[in-house]
């Protein structure tokens, strides 16, 4: 089963990482879901695929009342990101899902309708969870053509979707990156293949390096924190991407 771990806590403002499922079958890519809670309001990032809905839902219910999850933030359209949407809607028909405007009419193939899906403009937008103000940061072509990350200036956390992802060996279950040089070897192939544009990558590195980030939280693999955040951005900036 997955487990929810608090990665930030200040008063009623919390971030949880729902990660690492030892029971996960090896044919499913491992994913991280993040829950942002402010008071009695919560937002879930990239809730994952339909197959893992039971384990994500159960882990989440251990730490918050799931009826508080009123918003979903989908970084992009992939099945491991958002194919569980129909089940979240079944649980709470009033849930809202923020996603790039490009995917508004594609995502209802997984579930949801005009009311559920809130298309985000290309430049991003501000999202509110309780009293917390979050920023949807554009990350188009990294890797999807309509792609967003989510920045929380109070928690100093950037949820970075597939950017920063690493395909770790089965026995590497640490929540945080421990040895950057060792870790990045598992991230390299993924970024070279999945990130489609050097220009978009350059622009992203330029913009996010101006943000204060203490934790960079990808959808796959371990979380970068402290000095490893800037280490990663510099590494990514240097990397040539968009190649097989």
């Amino acid at each position, binding site marked *: *089963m997955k487990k929810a771990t608090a990665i930030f806590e200040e008063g009623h403002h919390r971030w949880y990482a729902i990660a690492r499922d030892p029971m996960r079958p090896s044919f499913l890519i491992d994913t991280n879901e993040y829950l942002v809670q402010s008071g009695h309001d919560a937002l879930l990032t990239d809730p994952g695929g*339909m*197959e893992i*809905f*039971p*384990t994500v*839902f*159960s882990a989440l*219910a*251990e730490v918050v*009342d*799931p*009826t508080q999850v009123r918003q979903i933030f989908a970084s992009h359209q992939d099945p491991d990101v958002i194919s569980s949407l*129909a*089940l979240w809607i*079944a*649980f709470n028909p009033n849930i809202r899902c923020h996603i790039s405007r490009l995917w508004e009419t594609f995502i209802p193939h997984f579930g949801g309708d005009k009311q559920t899906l809130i298309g985000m403009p290309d430049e991003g937008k501000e999202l509110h969870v309780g009293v917390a103000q979050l920023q949807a940061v554009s990350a188009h072509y990294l890797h999807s053509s309509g792609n967003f990350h989510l920045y929380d200036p109070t928690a100093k956390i950037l949820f970075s979707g597939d950017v920063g992802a690493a395909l770790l060996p089965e026995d590497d279950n640490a929540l945080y990156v421990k040895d950057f040089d060792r870790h990045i070897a598992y991230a390299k192939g993924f970024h070279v293949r999945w990130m489609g544009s050097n220009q978009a990558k350059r622009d992203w590195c330029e913009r996010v390096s101006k943000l204060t980030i203490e934790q960079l939280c990808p959808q796959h693999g371990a979380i970068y924190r402290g000095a490893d955040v800037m280490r990663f951005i510099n590494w990514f900036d240097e990397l040539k991407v968009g190649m097989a």
Partner: protein
Amino acid sequence: MGCHVSAMSSVQSHELQRFIMLREGIKEVAFRAFQIKLLALNATLLAKRFGEQARGFVVISTELRDFSQLLRTQMEGLGENSTKLVSLASYELKLLRQLNLLTRAGQHTSHDRLQNAQGQLQTQHQQLQRQMGQIHSAMQTWVDDAYQACLFGTVIARTAKIEAAHAGPLGAALADASNQFSNYVEQILPNLEQLKQALKG
């Protein structure tokens, strides 16, 4: 059949919501049980500090400790079962969604494999419902037992107050502890009553 499965799916999403409410109620009672545990420790220390002068309270504090342990065990049992129930109910939601999609496909075309797939999912669903029914019954037993234990807790609270009244100049500290204990038990009882009702629903 399609409408039937779809309606079932809707019922199950309400069931999941109900189980979540139960889970939240259990978390609340578990929190109170934790407070009682701390109070029991405090009562034991008080009784030891006052020695002979609070001999009656020593007995009470032992009862209180036993009660807090019993309640904690019961809340752990309830907590584990409610976690399982939420997990199974969320799995059921997924299963019904798949069944719904297969059933809708079956409305337009008839194929043996489609029917087989539907049949397998229906069997899985029946097994799941049996499992959930067993957990539900186990939870009813845990809640009933916890309720009975709390009724006994009210008796301990009353006796503690009497003992505190007889403890002379030391009575104030013991009375504080007794009153606090009484408050906690009084807070738990309606919560457990709600859980009992919710489990019947």
